[in-house]
């Protein structure tokens, strides 16, 4: 494994049961440490599948990957301690308060006592929800839920953070707060793998992006390089549409 690469993916392939076409098709990718790395693609491209495999949700059909030098096949426990996950769904218990949700999640990561309480308070302050932490998550607005969802993934200060559509359905102010917070995390040394359909966001946040389609890598480079390489494109969205086509994906 190269010294700078925190994630190395080699020939990753995944077939879902009943499907002849792979969701991820011999995907190979290297992600350097301390980057905000964008994983972009149309619907069904294989982004969520790739992230799910890296997070240990299910094994690949073929291929392998290493996260911070640990194999996803044989060293899952070590990887789980290094990573944080912010899934697309609001993976919180709506009948529990924000504080209760965070207390449970922190407890699962081995945090307890004063350390857990102060970490929860610190994170809530950072996303502007310290005074609303006693309310049930089910009563929150979409933006508030996304913010709690985010800090649930970083409570244990992970080395690598996977985010799957972290700002979908969120108001502009909340989206701005989330992206600012991600920059703050990046500045503190966290490697961020960012998957989103909001290409404007990806263009402003990510130091490097990979565009995948039908489970394969289509392009990998910095956003500015990708734009330069496509003469007629003015921004990442136009590059994306040029490379993946304008047809609607189901």
């Amino acid at each position, binding site marked *: 494994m190269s010294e700078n690469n925190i994630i190395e993916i080699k020939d990753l392939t995944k077939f879902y049961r009943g499907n002849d076409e792979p969701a991820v098709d011999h995907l190979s990718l290297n992600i350097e440490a301390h980057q905000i790395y964008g994983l972009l693609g149309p619907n069904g491209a294989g982004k969520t599948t790739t992230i799910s495999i890296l997070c240990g949700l299910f094994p690949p059909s073929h291929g392998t990957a290493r996260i911070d030098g640990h194999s996803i096949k044989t060293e899952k426990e070590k990887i789980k301690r290094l990573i944080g996950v912010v899934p697309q769904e609001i993976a*919180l218990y709506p009948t529990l308060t924000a504080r209760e949700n965070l207390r449970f999640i922190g407890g699962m*990561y081995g945090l307890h006592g004063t350390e857990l309480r102060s970490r929860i308070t610190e994170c809530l302050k950072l996303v502007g929800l310290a005074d609303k932490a006693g309310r049930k998550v089910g009563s929150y607005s979409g933006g508030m839920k996304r913010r709690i969802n985010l800090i649930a993934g970083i409570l244990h200060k992970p080395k690598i953070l996977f985010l799957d559509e972290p700002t979908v359905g969120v108001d502009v102010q909340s989206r701005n707060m989330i992206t600012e917070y991600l920059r703050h995390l990046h500045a503190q040394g966290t490697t961020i793998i960012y998957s989103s359909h909001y290409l404007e966001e990806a263009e402003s946040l990510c130091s490097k992006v990979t565009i995948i389609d039908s489970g394969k890598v289509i392009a990998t480079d910095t956003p500015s390089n990708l734009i330069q390489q496509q003469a007629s494109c003015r921004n990442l969205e136009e590059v994306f549409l040029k490379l993946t086509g304008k047809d609607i994906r189901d």
Partner: protein
Amino acid sequence: MRRFFASIIKEMLLILRDKAGMVLLFLMPVALVFIMVVIQDAAINTLNDNKIPVVMVDRDRDTLSYKITQGIRESGNFDIVQTIDGDTITPEQAQRLVAEGKFQIGIILPVGASDTLRSNAKTVVKKSFYEIGIIPEVPSDTIYDSINIQIFFDPSLRAASKTAISAMIAEYAVRTEAHMVYKTYAEVLTMLLPEGKEFKSDYPEVINYTESYATENLTTIQPNAVQHNIPSWTLFAMFFIVIPLSSSLIKEKEDGSYLRLVTMPGSYSTIFLGKIFVYLLVALIQFALMMLVGFYLVPMMGMPMLVIGQDYLALATLVLSSALAAIGFGVMIGTIATTHQQASSFGSIIVMILAAIGGLFMPSYMMPASVRHISDFSPMYWAHESFQDLFIRDAHLADIAPRLLKILIFAAVCYLIAFAYKKFRKVR
């Protein structure tokens, strides 16, 4: 260990915040058991304690009818009426009264029934004495006259009561006849003895009946509505954990919480065991609430208090095993079902079926033979019969061990199916 406790706290909070779930788990079973005990107690009392009304037309007015009437009265199960407004009831009236449903049984004892018995007794004696040569002439009257006792039944009368009354009448008729024969023999033999000597006609009762329960414990615990229903609805409530438990598992899959849980360090089993532990507590609380109903609430309504036998270790083992089986069932349904609708409808229907064939709604001995055969496939049957063994039949742990083993195997199979299904879905 911290993860286990964190999971327990989370699960407890989820249950406490689910008001509808709390009603389903705790209030509904208490209300259900109380209502069912009251209803069934009233029904059983109607069957057992209320005397069956009998209209009797006594046209014999002699030994036979007196014996029959006395015997039926002394049984304590029948209420005999022979007059209405001071007037003696006629046979036609009796038949009409039973047809109209005012009485459930009508008995008409014919004129001269006792005389006919005496005549028959004399004929028996004469014939026997002729055959052994004591009297030289062939008796002229060798024909036995018959007695026709009419019995009318209301169609709604239970078969057991019909049999009881018919058997009673037959028994007293045979006894009376035997007494008469014996008395006639005694009279004739006295005539053959020297003057001043008498043949004693005592007819001692030589067959005695002692009734008791087959258990070693001599305290007579009656199987009643309380003894049947408290364990029935306790088990029903425990197995209805399938709804909130399966819903909890499906919700975690639906809202993404499950995804977060499996990406956390440590085995998902620790989190899962925390969930099982909390639902085990729920089942134990349900059991405790039902016991409180049986010990305190039910006696306040004038019904007998629940009696739970002497072997508390056996009872604790049975309760724990039943709870584990119920939770295992809930886990299996929650794992296989993909929607709340599937889990709640499928789960609740299976619970109802298992409860019905398991003898929870109606004692298994009252069920048709064809249903009784399939009772033994229901884990609720195994558990309920074990409760009855402990409560009524003075059983101990060793006596209920075979059924306990079945219950635990059922639990294990449910967990295994859930585990295998989860693994099978992940693989490829």
